[in-house]
């Protein structure tokens, strides 16, 4: 299964980025092979509006079936739902590797409604 982890850096050893829409990097990890690749999200980080929506589009294009992050705004939530991407939540920043392990073990709650107001509008 392909999973995206929002990250403040390019490696899974570093803590995950708690904000989905304006995360610095998306790390695409394969839960079977353990292979991980980092994808820059700088373009959306600085978007005038709709960063969360664009981030959802990026994640969908990467072919992910789930995303692990800290918070998702209302519009990004709608977009991820429409793309059929599951959202798993960590409650506090932790290394990406740990988040991925807990996800595989089914320890992370799955988000069924947006849990952030969004940065604006």
């Amino acid at each position: 299964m392909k999973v995206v982890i929002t990250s403040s850096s390019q490696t899974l050893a570093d803590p995950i980025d708690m904000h989905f829409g304006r995360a610095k990097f998306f790390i695409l990890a394969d839960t079977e092979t353990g292979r991980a690749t980092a994808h820059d999200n700088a373009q959306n980080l600085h978007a005038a509006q709709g960063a969360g929506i664009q981030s959802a589009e990026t994640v969908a294009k990467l072919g992910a079936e789930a995303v692990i992050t800290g918070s998702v705004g209302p519009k990004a939530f709608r977009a991820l739902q429409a793309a059929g991407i599951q959202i798993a939540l960590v409650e506090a920043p932790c290394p990406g590797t740990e988040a991925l392990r807990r996800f595989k073990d089914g320890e992370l709650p799955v988000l069924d409604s947006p849990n952030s107001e969004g940065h604006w509008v």
Partner: protein
Amino acid sequence: MSSFPSIAIASGKGGTGKTTVAVHLAAWLAGRGEAVQYLDCDVEEPNGHLFLKPVIETAEPAAIPVPVVDNDRCTACGKCAAACEFNAVAMLKKPMVFTELCHGCGACTLVCPVEAIREEPRGIGTVETGQAGPIRFAQGRLNVGEPMSPPLIRAVKNRRDPAAIALFDSPPGTSCPVIAAVRAADFIVLVTEPSPFGLHDLTLAVETFRPMDLPFGVVVNRADPADLRVQDFCRQQEIPVLAELPDDRRVAETYARGELLFDRLPEWRDRMAELWARIEERL
């Protein structure tokens, strides 16, 4: 220029007395028998109605066109999402539209190769028109929580009666809603107050309006003979001071009650007459 000019009343800072000047000018002009229309373009906080107390005759929704995708026709090519500068269309399995981010530019509709996108209106507020005694009245009310005000401001201005002097009560500040409100006016009256905040915001307003090539002048409200920095600034910048309205607690008290000043402070009639004379000689 038509025989009936349009005057925008603006201010760099809120609360300087912009609406006070606009409604009294309207009332004075009407009292003199002029055909006059007051248009409240301060659509986030329209307050002129509190003083003019118009009878509202029409109320129509104002809308911007937003896209609707016909998923049967859509080939999921993604061109619509790529064309949208505002991230209002996302390409997921099919295009998904976030109408609250849409500016109504039509880019997605134009670019769609299979004509799978049509547009439908999304309401952003209401335009009301009516009559306040002899004064023709129009105002916009932006829906609470709605971010996009310029299209509503343009809708209010479209109600302009060409057979009357138009007074546009503009939003405060110097950003794009103000530009939408003052655009195509024949003259801008900038209302300020002689405080450091007032002077600072006036300088920003002057920087904004200078390049627009529209004539403008300044009204100093709550004028204080001990603080003439605004007047000095205007002299240096060669901006006419159209009126100085003295600081008077009775003005604040009368304003607080939503009453016009003419009964309690009849000298305000003369002040409006002088102000209008100064504006008229510059048209």
